[in-house]
């Protein structure tokens, strides 16, 4: 049962990631190309002492065409299948344990929590950046901060979900939703204020390209989680057993 769910989640993730591959290819690649053009221009404009050395140390291992094509596709598919699988595991724990929620509502709720806690909230503090933004010297610290923010957000969101489930019997739908959600927002606000900010955008970097890049990245994630939820629910209800159960709880 759990094994089948895992497979279904990965399948739904693959479907969703095919969609966002198309989206990112059309809307994400142009600002990314502009960022690379900016990077190259900046490098050639300032011929400082170690510039040739850097150029020599970075031979083009993978062509831009491959990076923007099969590379992007592979990366997005692997990410999509993995997030879909993790989503299915979360669903296996949550389904039937969230009060009166049926499988479809549980799917939607989990996808909304996933999108907010794993993508939107971490992006408030550490937004997606195109090439040329961010110094190679700080990659370790930036990677740590990004995952700390994401882990903290996920942990707090799951705690809020479990608390809401506990409060539901005594406080009813509305307050069992609003109270934990409020605590989540307040906790996140504290974390956003406490964690160090990172601003490594070069002064002359084109702001519209930065905005277009971030908007494309975040929209891609929104499409991914929406498609994941819909595809997962659709695959779930395809099996006759699940269909009859869905019918009962609908």
């Amino acid at each position, binding site marked *: *049962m*759990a*094994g089948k*769910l*895992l497979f279904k989640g990965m399948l739904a993730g693959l479907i969703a990631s095919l969609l966002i591959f198309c989206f*990112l290819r059309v809307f*994400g690649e142009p600002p*990314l190309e502009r960022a690379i053009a900016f990077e190259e221009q900046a490098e050639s404009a300032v011929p400082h002492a170690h510039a040739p050395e850097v150029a020599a140390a970075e031979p083009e*291992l*993978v062509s831009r065409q*491959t*990076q*923007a094509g099969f*590379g*992007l596709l*592979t*990366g*997005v598919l*692997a*990410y999509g*299948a*993995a*997030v879909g*699988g*993790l989503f299915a*595991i979360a669903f*296996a*724990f949550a*389904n*039937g*344990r969230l*009060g*009166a*929620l049926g*499988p479809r509502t549980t799917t939607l709720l989990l996808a909304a929590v996933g999108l907010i806690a794993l*993508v939107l909230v*971490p*992006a408030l503090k*550490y*937004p*997606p*950046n*195109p*090439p040329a933004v*961010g110094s*190679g010297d700080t*990659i370790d610290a*930036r*990677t*740590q901060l*990004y995952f700390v923010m994401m882990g903290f957000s996920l942990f707090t969101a799951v705690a809020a979900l479990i608390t809401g489930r506990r409060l539901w019997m005594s406080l009813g739908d509305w307050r069992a939703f609003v109270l934990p959600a409020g605590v989540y927002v307040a906790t996140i606000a504290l974390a956003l204020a406490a964690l160090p900010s990172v601003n490594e955008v070069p002064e002359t970097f084109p702001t519209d390209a930065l905005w277009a*890049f971030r908007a*494309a*990245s975040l929209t*891609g*994630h929104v499409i991914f989680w929406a498609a994941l939820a819909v595809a997962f629910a659709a695959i779930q209800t395809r099996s006759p057993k699940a269909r009859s*159960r869905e*019918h*009962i*709880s609908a």
Partner: protein
Amino acid sequence: MSTLLQHQAKFSGSIATPAPIPLREVMPWALFGGLMMLLAIYFVGVEEGALSVFAGSYVHEYVHDARHLLGFPCH
């Protein structure tokens, strides 16, 4: 009997919630599957950036655009 239950459930909306999968059954899948999934995310998001399993930067370069567009710190 079952049709009566179904009927009741359909209209009261709260009787039949799906039977949860026992935790004992979910755990092995969650541990092993979760590990595999995190490994995949690691290779797309982090490998040859902040941490490296393989030497060189081929993996990093190959998934470069995906890493940027999915929002991971890349370089």
